[in-house]
């Protein structure tokens, strides 16, 4: 992952989030379907996380495929920055 911040795009429906994930996975962008960060006023429980520097490409890809986004948010603190995630012992 590049050192920059993550961003998330949120949606009005989970169907839109899953459709967005499908179209983004057909690109070379690195994106991930995740539970919507709770601090965001979310319309739907699923969001897509991406590298914030790719914001415009993500937005254009969704627009071109007729997927309506409810909003884009930059995440100031990347979740894994500097820490090893816990895993099975």
């Amino acid at each position, binding site marked *: 992952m590049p050192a920059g911040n993550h961003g998330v795009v949120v*949606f*009005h*429906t*989970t*169907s*839109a*989030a*899953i*459709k967005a*994930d*499908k179209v983004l996975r057909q690109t070379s962008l690195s994106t991930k*379907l*995740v*539970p*919507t960060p709770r601090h965001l*006023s*979310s*319309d*739907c*429980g*699923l969001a897509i996380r991406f590298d914030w520097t790719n914001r415009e490409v993500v937005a254009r890809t969704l627009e071109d495929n*007729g997927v309506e986004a409810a909003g884009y948010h930059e995440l100031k603190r990347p979740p894994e920055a500097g820490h090893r995630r816990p895993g099975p012992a």
Partner: protein
Amino acid sequence: MSSADMGDHLIYLDNAATSWPKPPEVAAAMAEYLAESGGNPGRSGHRLSIAAGRVVLEAREAVASLFNMEDPFRVVFTLNATHALNMALFGLLRPGDRAVTTAMEHNSVMRPLRELERRGVEVVVVPCDAAGFVDVDHFLRELARGARVACFQHASNVSGTIQPLELLAAAARAAGAYSVVDAAQTAGVLPIDVTAMGIDLLAFTGHKGLQGPPGTGGLVLGPAFDPEILQPLVRGGTGSRSEFEEHPAMLPDRFEAGTPNGVGLAGLAAGLTVLTNRTVERVRAEERELTTRLHHALTAISGVKVYGPDDPSHRTAVLSLRIEGTAQDEVGLMLDEEFGILTRVGLHCAPAAHRTLGTFPDGAVRLSLGYFTSAREIDQTAEAVRRIAGYISPEKGP
């Protein structure tokens, strides 16, 4: 009579009730769904929920593509066509409104309309001729008098009669009425282009021509139809806007509350893949050829009356017949027990259609072909009907 020389192979001619057998891919997809992606579709962020959500999206996109809809979220899933028709009719009609329908409708249209009539909706039933075709001039006259809804079937579940869908939908739009089309018998069997035909609402079922399992179906909202006009039948959890206690307005959530039938939709998606690979056009051509073969053979048998249009281009693969001189349920029983031919006898949930065809209240024997019906089965069926007719009226026999 003996089944011995007919073989003990079952001949399934009840595809208008539900198609059988299903393509093996359908059961495989359903088993895989339960084993591999059994989360609640899109409700939770974990991988099984997402996997299930992807399956539902795949089914939605496949249905949208079949009906030439650009926006898959205008396909709303329901339990079946009846559920979709109730959603359309109860969602659109209010006391004082006027609804125009035909005298060939199934009870999935008639019963909601009769209930709405009791609540103050004016329901106009336009007569149909003896072959089941709606009187188009009469239909247009009723539309011209003002109507909120024009609700009609694409084809009859009793006689196979195909109504002029494109003409009726265009007439409804021109008159300012919303078209509500019952495509239970035609989805996957006849080409339907919701966009080009200007249809407002199309109700379909998944377990007939689309080759999917029971418990799947839906309502397609045409591209020009404003979803805000339609009140939802059911409200509840959607996995979206969870902080609000009001039901969301966005599609498809506006019309889909509660956990969807993910396992059924997995089967439906698989059925649609099989269907689109074979193509609706080819299914139609094959069914038409076999139906014509059956129709010719049956109409040649003395004592047998076949209902519906003679012209094969105006009928689906559904045929109803009566053998005079006996109760029709006896005919159905003999076909089953002596010949292993599975049909449906009675009124087929469509008393209006049977009144129109002149077969009310005794009903008829319905033979409905499907995806897997063979020419040999058609010939065996015609031979069985010939034998039964000869047995009942020996003097009329061959």
